[in-house]
């Protein structure tokens, strides 16, 4: 088969011969090694058979690659996210000159620095297992991303260098100009980190929405076009936001763990405070996430209706039910944690009666979201399901109803947070009544508007773009969030504290809410990673490079869920290991009489 040779021959020549040859047919590619063919060109995507995939007895290669990739992604997400909010916390510390923030930021870094080496190890393992089990795919992708692979390596070294200076120089670069240097390092660290992630995302999205290749997979030499493919930015955005939320939740679990095992009151107070902040970060990033998700979906539809339908209407429709359950769990546990947090002060009792209404709305919104779409299925799938499902719940299963529910979920979570913030304070400005009235009006009008929009789009339009039609709802929600934050900030400027805030006065069960958040988040990420891959069905690179391995079939949901569970457990074990390393790091044993006395 000349393709392999050709690819070798051309990958050298290609450096000097850029995009001009991209219209050469695949047939010409195979003759590239003939001496008189001037045109250097790229090979088409190989057509493989099952025997082209190396196997190792007793190892399911797909599951192996799947788990390693997922573990790498989890750690990568965490490691990239932490510096983002550490940067912000450090800046807050500098602005307020409150050292607690600086210490907290450093403590976060301490957790993530060990995770960083695990990320790198897993990344190496991932490359290794790809080369081992999917050599042709790896080679094909590597040819296309040759230029960026080099950049990736350089960025990785830069990231490591900056990270270590940032971390080990923390206590050295303190005060005045030095602190500014340190902050700048943090910024640099984040810039490099994001670039790294974006480059990695290019591979993933290229496999979903290939660009710069023709239908036979012949690359036209334009690496940037391959990177900047149709779904690249939507995934970049969704992952960036999701990573921050995820990072927050893992730190939350760390704090919860420390809180539960704390021995002194001070320690408990400290970790309660950290847990609170971590939860705050997780929620703040959680709120915009559904929007990023719907944007991603809308873009998938725009790229290919077929892919959109496969995603939302076919076998995978059920995955969004599971997703809804998990996201519902995320929102509920985040809210629950906030409500528990009201126990930190006596001032909060005033708000307790209102909580149950918020809880009711949240559950209702959750149930609507949870209602399945009408499903589009192949005959065989219809048979295995025993008929299409939920035709009667039709409208509630539609996108507008779901969007409405999601917006409610977000607005009411925000409300929980506002109550929490206000709980211990009494505003002293003269316009409190007016301010409150405006806010109530804002929420009421906003929620009515969201409902009306949902009803309008749900019943009275027949457009195919119901996903994109939710924009006015989103804008309403954002308006509520922004305007009411502004009003609240002004209104509670210089507010009186009702009673002292007792950090550490939290029931133990509240800490389990933080664990739930972390575990559910991890599992959700794994699940969505499966969907992202699975909608390619039997393609390595959608429509261009077919998967002909024995594992080309799309695994069903139950099976996928079990793999995700195994992955989550592995991840949790590694995370516990990191926490434990952290704990022993601060332990000091004085082994009396062991060391010889200095002379």
């Amino acid at each position: 088969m000349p393709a392999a040779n050709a690819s070798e021959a051309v990958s050298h020549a290609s450096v000097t011969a850029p995009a001009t040859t991209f219209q050469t047919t695949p047939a010409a590619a195979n003759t590239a090694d003939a001496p008189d063919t001037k045109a250097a060109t790229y090979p088409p995507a190989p057509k493989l058979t099952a025997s082209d995939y190396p196997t190792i007895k007793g190892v399911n290669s797909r599951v192996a690659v799947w788990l390693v990739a997922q573990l790498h992604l989890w750690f990568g997400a965490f490691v990239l996210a932490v510096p983002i909010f550490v940067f912000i916390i450090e800046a807050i510390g500098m602005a307020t000159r409150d050292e607690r923030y600086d210490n907290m930021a450093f403590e976060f870094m301490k957790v993530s620095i060990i995770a960083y080496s695990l990320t790198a190890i897993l990344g190496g393992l991932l490359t290794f297992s790809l080369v081992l089990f999917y050599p042709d795919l790896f080679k094909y992708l590597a040819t296309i991303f040759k230029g960026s692979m080099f950049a990736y390596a350089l960025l990785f070294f830069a990231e490591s260098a900056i990270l270590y200076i940032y971390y080990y120089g923390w206590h050295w670069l303190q005060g005045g100009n030095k602190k500014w240097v340190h902050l700048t390092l943090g910024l640099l660290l984040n810039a490099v980190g994001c670039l790294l992630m974006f480059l990695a995302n290019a591979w993933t999205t290229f496999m979903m929405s290939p660009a710069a290749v023709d239908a036979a997979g012949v690359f036209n030499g334009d690496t940037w076009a391959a990177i900047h493919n149709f779904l690249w930015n939507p995934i970049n955005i969704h992952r960036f936001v999701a990573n921050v939320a995820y990072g927050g939740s893992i730190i939350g679990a760390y704090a919860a763990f420390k809180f539960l095992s704390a021995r002194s009151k001070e320690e408990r107070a400290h970790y309660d405070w950290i847990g609170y902040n971590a939860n705050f970060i997780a929620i703040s990033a959680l709120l915009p996430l559904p929007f990023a998700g719907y944007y991603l979906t809308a873009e998938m539809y725009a790229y290919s209706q077929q892919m959109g339908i496969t995603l939302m209407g076919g076998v995978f429709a059920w995955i969004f039910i599971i997703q809804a359950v998990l996201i519902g769990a995320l929102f509920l546990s985040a809210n629950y944690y906030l409500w528990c947090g009201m126990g930190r002060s006596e001032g909060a009792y005033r708000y307790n009666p209102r909580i149950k209404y918020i809880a009711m709305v949240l559950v209702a919104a959750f149930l609507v979201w949870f209602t399945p779409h009408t499903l589009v299925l192949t005959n065989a799938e219809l048979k295995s399901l025993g008929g299409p499902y939920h035709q009667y719940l039709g409208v509630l299963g539609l996108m507008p109803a779901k969007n409405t529910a999601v917006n409610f979920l977000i607005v009411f979570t925000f409300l929980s947070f506002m109550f929490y913030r206000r709980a211990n304070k009494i505003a002293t400005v003269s316009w409190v009544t007016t301010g409150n009235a405006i806010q109530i009006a804002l929420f009421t009008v906003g929620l009515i508007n969201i409902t009306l929009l949902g009803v309008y789009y749900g019943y009275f339009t027949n457009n195919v773009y119901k996903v994109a039609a939710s924009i006015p709802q989103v804008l309403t929600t954002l308006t509520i969030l922004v305007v009411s934050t502004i009003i609240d900030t002004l209104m509670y400027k210089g507010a009186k504290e009702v009673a002292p805030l007792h950090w550490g006065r939290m029931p133990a069960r509240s800490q389990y809410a933080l664990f739930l958040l972390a575990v559910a988040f991890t599992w959700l990420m794994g699940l969505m990673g499966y969907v992202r891959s699975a909608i390619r069905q039997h393609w390595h690179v959608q429509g261009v490079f077919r998967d002909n391995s024995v594992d080309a079939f799309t695994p069903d949901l139950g099976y996928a869920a079990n793999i995700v569970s195994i992955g989550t457990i592995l991840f949790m074990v590694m995370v516990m290991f990191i926490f434990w390393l952290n704990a022993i790091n601060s332990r000091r044993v004085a082994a009396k009489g062991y060391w010889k006395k200095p002379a």
Partner: protein
Amino acid sequence: MYNVLKVTGFSLLMIGGFSAYSNYGIPQIIPAPPPVEEKLELSAMTMDQFVAFGGRIYNGKGTCTLCHNSMGRAPMLDRIGSVASENLKNPNYRGTAKTVEEYLHESLVKPSAFVTAGFGKAGSNDTESPMPDVSGGGIGLFEAEIAAVIAYLQESSGSEVTVAIPALPAAGAGTSNAEEAAPLKTPEEVIAKYTCGVCHVFAGHDLENRPGTLGPNLARIGATRSREYLRQALLDPDAVIAKGYAAGMMPKTYGEQLKAQELEMLVNYMAKSK
């Protein structure tokens, strides 16, 4: 240590819960296996095998069941044999078929020849079919495959199978399928293939003097419209209707048929027509 155990137990319980829910809480659908790339030996096939081959295409590559299922997107085809003979006598029938077999063939490649009442494209008053031409772009069945599908339709609706197994090998069937069909390389080719010129005038010497006046003149469209607008005009023509034209005229199937690259090529081409 006690805490570690409790936390571990709690986490395992949750993970187990998620798994259990995904396994037992929702119906387990086994996704369709990847389409098999068939080695076609038509000459060696019995009629039964040929019909079965048609059935596989119907349920697989043809994507027919995406629309022809019990959810009302398209008529059920379980009685198509007798329905076809009735439709042939229907005054609204505008095709040229004489027999059921010809009718079915026409339904597959010129779906608008007869549109089942109530299933036409919105606004076309049942004159245009939303069903794609199965030999074109998105589905790309070959003649032999179409014949097999017809045989399958006849067999499964209980009528007599009249199709003869084609003597020719199915052109490339087995090794090649729609996604792997040679790509179109120029916007002109794309415009020609998808017959945009029937309705539009485009820029470029080859395309300028075409008769298309059913839709807006696109020769300078790039001067007034953004790329996003143009992309949407192709994917979802009814999202914004050009002034002075009716909705529902511009076909809505391009989103399914155009390959992503072809789409981008068209959008680029139009955006540059200033």
